[in-house]
């Protein structure tokens, strides 16, 4: 017997999965560059969120057209994986359609895969048209040029080609066509190959089979370099996302300590720091390593759909702020930091850059109204607002770089307990007016 195809297959599979695993490790390492954040609260709500939002696509379908098409592609992705399992087993053991012993059920499975494949193909084509012909606004914002724009199209081409290969593979499988059950779509394609010799047909079938599985492996490895990571990260991201009311912003513990000390009448203001005491933390974030790991996971999860930006009041009125760009910048900077660490034997070497100013400008940060529209709009529970707030905190508390008007109102609040320069003793005057 000839084992060369089997050996070749195992090697290809090993490389494909091995390289992916290596990048996943890198991904996890990068996410862990973030500060710790407590996500131990309300487990049952977290499971519910993951099941509803990621598995159940509940937020996707709030926009019915894109939502419906996305559900098809998503179902296709999940269900067709059963077929991939068969391909892998066949490839390793040199079998052919190992699951066909299931008989009628097998036909049912393949039949539904074929129908799904066509639906996915149609959906992906519609997606492509929305992006490139109809040119939906959110796909053509300032941050959607060069790689982000191409990346989106490459993913669609990938999916089109994979679906076509799957159908061609089935159509040219003479054994499968002879069974004449389950070939609901490929049976219609098969006649295109009438008149081909048996060996040519077999050659096409084998080529489609190999290209299909290699395409899947390439696509798997493409994920790490693409916005498409959401197909995996949407699950942890919706699980770990905050389960608190959206209006609740975290209270910085480091600040609580200092404020308590300041307000404690017994505290000695001139006391030297106790031995071994860690120096006070940096307040807020100027770079990705100042953010927490959930914010970094958010950044890798973002698939740049732009629903956040399309609902952002600042962006809708022509300001530079785009919540999607905040996430893309965070991810790009994190990747840059990760590469720096890889290139310097595991140690980050100062590169004179940071997230603030090199990626995200102050103008963007100050345009936010903290309205939570972006957080509400995100189909996978990403929170761009928390990053904006942490960066504002850095600007105000580390750099005293708030816009002048805000410095004025903060001084007023400090002095007389209101944003306006009115005397606190006048707080009850409205009762007499």
């Amino acid at each position, binding site marked *: 017997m000839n084992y060369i195809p089997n050996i070749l297959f195992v090697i290809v599979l090993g490389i494909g999965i091995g390289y992916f695993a290596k990048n996943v490790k890198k991904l996890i390492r990068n996410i862990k560059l973030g500060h710790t954040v407590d996500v131990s609260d309300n487990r049952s709500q977290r499971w519910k969120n993951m099941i509803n939002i990621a598995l159940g696509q509940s937020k996707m379908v709030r926009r019915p057209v894109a939502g419906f098409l996305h559900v098809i592609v998503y179902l296709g992705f999940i269900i067709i994986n059963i077929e991939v399992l068969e391909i892998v087993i066949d490839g390793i053991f040199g079998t052919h359609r190992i699951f066909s012993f299931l008989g009628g059920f097998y036909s049912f499975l393949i039949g539904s895969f074929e129908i799904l494949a066509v639906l996915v193909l149609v959906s992906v084509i519609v997606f492509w048209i929305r992006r490139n012909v109809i040119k939906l606004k959110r796909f053509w914002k300032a941050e959607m040029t060069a790689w982000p724009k191409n990346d989106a199209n490459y993913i669609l081409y990938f999916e089109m080609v994979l679906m076509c290969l799957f159908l061609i593979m089935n159509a040219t499988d003479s054994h499968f066509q002879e069974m004449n059950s389950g070939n609901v779509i490929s049976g219609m394609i098969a006649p295109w190959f009438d008149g081909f010799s048996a060996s040519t047909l077999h050659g096409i079938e084998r080529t489609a089979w190999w290209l299909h599985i290699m395409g899947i492996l390439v696509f798997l490895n493409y994920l790490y370099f693409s916005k498409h990571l959401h197909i995996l990260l949407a699950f942890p991201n919706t699980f770990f996302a905050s389960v608190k*009311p*959206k*209006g*609740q*912003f975290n*209270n*910085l513990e480091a*600040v*609580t300590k200092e*404020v*308590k000390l*300041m*307000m404690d009448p017994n505290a000695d203001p001139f006391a030297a720091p106790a031995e071994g005491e860690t120096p006070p933390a940096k307040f*807020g974030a100027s770079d990705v390593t100042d953010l927490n790991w959930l914010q970094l996971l958010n950044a890798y999860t973002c698939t740049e759909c732009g629903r956040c930006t399309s*609902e952002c*009041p*600042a962006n*809708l*009125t*022509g*300001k530079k702020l785009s919540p999607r760009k905040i996430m893309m910048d965070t991810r790009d900077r994190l990747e840059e930091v990760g590469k720096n660490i890889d290139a310097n034997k595991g140690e980050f070497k100062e590169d004179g850059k940071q997230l603030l100013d090199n990626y995200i400008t102050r103008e963007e940060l*100050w*345009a936010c*109204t*903290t*309205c*939570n*529209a972006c*957080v*509400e*709009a995100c189909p996978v529970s990403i929170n761009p607002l928390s990053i904006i*707030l942490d960066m*504002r*905190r850095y*600007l*105000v*508390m580390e750099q005293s770089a*708030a*816009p002048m*008007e*805000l410095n*004025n*109102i*903060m001084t007023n*609040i*400090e002095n007389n*307990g*209101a*944003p*306006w320069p*009115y005397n*606190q*003793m*006048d*707080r*009850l*005057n*409205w*009762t007499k*007016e």
Partner: protein
Amino acid sequence: MSQLIVKTMAEYMAEGKQPEILFWVGSAGSYDDRAKKITKAFVKLLNKAHVEFGVLGTEESNTGDVAKRAGNEFLFQMQAMTNIEILNAYEVKRIVTACPHSYNTLKNEYPSLGGNYQVQHHTEYIQELMQSGRLKIESNSELHGKRITFHDPCYLGRANEVYEVPRNLLKKLGVELVEMKRNRRTALCCGAGGAQMFKEPEKGDKDINVLRTEDALETQPSIIATGCPYCNTMMTDGVKAKEKEGSIQVLDIAELIANAQGL
């Protein structure tokens, strides 16, 4: 017009009494000329329902919401701890406020700093007063059948998912409630949150309050209702920018209800 009955927590304490609720007036409600009218309208409703309520008066200080959202966590926590000390000293259990920003901060951000209270937005409390029969709305008011659209304040709506209470109150007034295309969780911000109220907007092609006012104008309302003093200012300015102040009023729900009662 009858005199407003307002007592401070200090006065209650001197009498050895504890009021039913603390009315958190807020900085805008205390000082801003437009917001003061909302404060008074709500107090009239409280008086009418014979609610024993206290205010902190000169002991109240800014919640720190603006400072926190501007990035000044220090100032926020100083304000919060100062307020919490006073609230706890008066053993306050329930707080009602007409400002969604105070509402959100008191409700969500004070607990981990030691301030645990039951906090309600004034619309929630008014609804409660109606349900318990302490406050009644005459449905044959002059508002009957008027087109009113409700602008969701971000910190009441998305931030805390209170969408229906203000709408239910409006419906009780017998008005024709019309929705903007962006409503509830997709409602557009008025442009004031996150400390924007106090600064010039960044460069763009439009002001947010004007865009939101355009949303409202599409529904051809005679009144734009809100539940937030900042939204009120922004929408009022938007209506002026569109030169519609002659035909469209911007009113808080408390004002609408107080007017309907002839208060």
